[in-house]
């Protein structure tokens, strides 16, 4: 089957380091084409291998998330050999852009939802890998959608799930500094409602550890004054 005939390309949304995002239509649906285009700088076999495995892995993550009831775009078509993933287009705006215009009770409600969904993802052993306010879409009626599982992975490790939540906190701190404490509190509330006190507190302790360890701390290492 030649897929080209089924596709209408409308506009290029972005050309990232990993893939190009293109808006268009397929089988009468508004869609986003996520194309992991070939990279001329690496061995052809390696390039094909990376694009193929990453495309199908991302599709698996999205599929698993959907089965657990997480709002994610539907997958219309996957062609791992060409690095192509065709996803439902979610009508809405990035959370990053919407946040400033929302009143505090709706934004808290949104973050509680996000926390709950991330809790469900983590319970099911799915780590999103890039939880920022750019990768969450908010619809007109304030429903949440998770997009871009390109850096995600299947894992139950405390470390990886901690990094996931830490990234959300970091994203809030860097892009929405005035709202951090109330929004993150709402997030944790939602997260706890799924994962319980014990695990959630472990995650919070992990975040503290990550902060001290990371290169976000100017002097992460013990500075020892060496003798002459």
């Amino acid at each position: 089957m030649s897929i080209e005939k089924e596709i209408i390309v409308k506009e290029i949304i972005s050309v990232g380091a990993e893939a190009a995002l293109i808006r268009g239509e397929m089988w009468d649906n508004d869609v986003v084409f996520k194309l992991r285009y070939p990279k001329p700088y690496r061995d052809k076999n390696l390039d094909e291998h990376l694009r193929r495995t990453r495309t199908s892995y991302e599709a698996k993550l999205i599929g698993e998330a959907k089965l657990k009831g997480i709002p994610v775009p539907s997958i219309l078509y996957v062609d791992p050999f060409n690095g192509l993933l065709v996803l439902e287009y979610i009508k809405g705006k990035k959370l990053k852009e919407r946040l400033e215009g929302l009143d505090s009770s709706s934004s808290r409600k949104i973050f509680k939802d996000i926390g709950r969904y991330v809790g469900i993802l983590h319970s099911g052993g799915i780590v999103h890998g890039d939880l920022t306010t750019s990768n969450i879409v908010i619809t007109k009626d304030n429903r949440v959608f998770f997009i871009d599982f390109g850096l995600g992975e299947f894992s139950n490790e405390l470390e990886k799930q901690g990094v996931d939540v830490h990234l959300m906190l970091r994203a809030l701190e860097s892009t929405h500094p005035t709202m951090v404490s109330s929004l993150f509190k709402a997030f944790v509330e939602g997260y706890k409602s799924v994962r319980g006190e014990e695990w959630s507190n472990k995650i919070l302790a992990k975040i503290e550890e990550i902060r001290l360890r990371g290169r976000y701390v100017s002097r992460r290492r013990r500075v020892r004054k060496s003798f002459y």
Partner: protein
Amino acid sequence: MDRVIVLGIESTAHTFGVGIASSDGEVLANVNRSYVPISGGLHPREMAEHHSKVAPEVFREALEKAQISMDDVDGIAIALGPGMGPCLRVGATLARYLSLKFSKPLIPVNHAVAHVEIAKLSTGFKDPLIVYVAGGNTMIIAFVKGRYRVFGETLDIPLGNCLDVFAREIGLGLPGTPKVEELAIKGERYVEMPYVVKGQDLSFSGLLTHALKLLREGNYKLEDICYSLVETAYSMLVEVTERGLVHLNKKEIALTGGVARSKLLADKLTKMAALHGAMFKPVNPEYAGDNGAMIAYTGALALQSGVEVSVEESFIRPLWRLDEVDIPWIT
């Protein structure tokens, strides 16, 4: 401050070097001697012994090359870290002595910052994304708000170390990277290797272990293993560089450090830069490996901005990270 001339001393690892350079980027001398082990790897104590032996002649030769006397020098720059303690102490001792004897200010220089500054001087780029790859470091760097920041780095061994150790294991000696590349060019077949990119960071230790395992098993040609090893390591690095480039929206990429002499890596970075409409240049090969000139030049920039350290406070700093250093000369 007007143009200053600084004498810089490098002794963080296997190279002992003395360079003389001005703050406007003229290199008057760049004299370096590298320790080459008779067999095995680099032992810090043996390197330090080597540095102590060659230090006086390297110093004299640098002054002769530059055809100046100590009176013409405005300051003494010393790479206080990061590096190996025994090696660092040799250079630091000489620098403190020169500073006291000739009453010249002592200027602390971070070795990694020096690699970055010499790359900017050599490529002419003003605000590039910098790829720093050597036997001791693998980092993607850019200047943001008063400091050089790290946008990705190795989580275990550096790329140059990965190739050097592999070369040593197959009996090729140091420096191993060019020799592994020679074999890699003759390789024809890509054998699957662990490709480990974690977000912006890299890991090479599993790759090294796997390549050595394939070698011992003997099912593949050495050339093919070298090709696959080099291809995987460089592709990982270029992928992370590409992410940094898009994320920071930079238009220039500079390659620096010992591995900057690599044609294969330069070729990959050129192709990647073209994809995003960016320019790529490697540092001049003379300044790729560790050298005294880069310490002198960076020291000159620092002295102009008033950066100095007293002899009493001039501790060596083996773990000194580049993102801990304020850069007052960029405004």
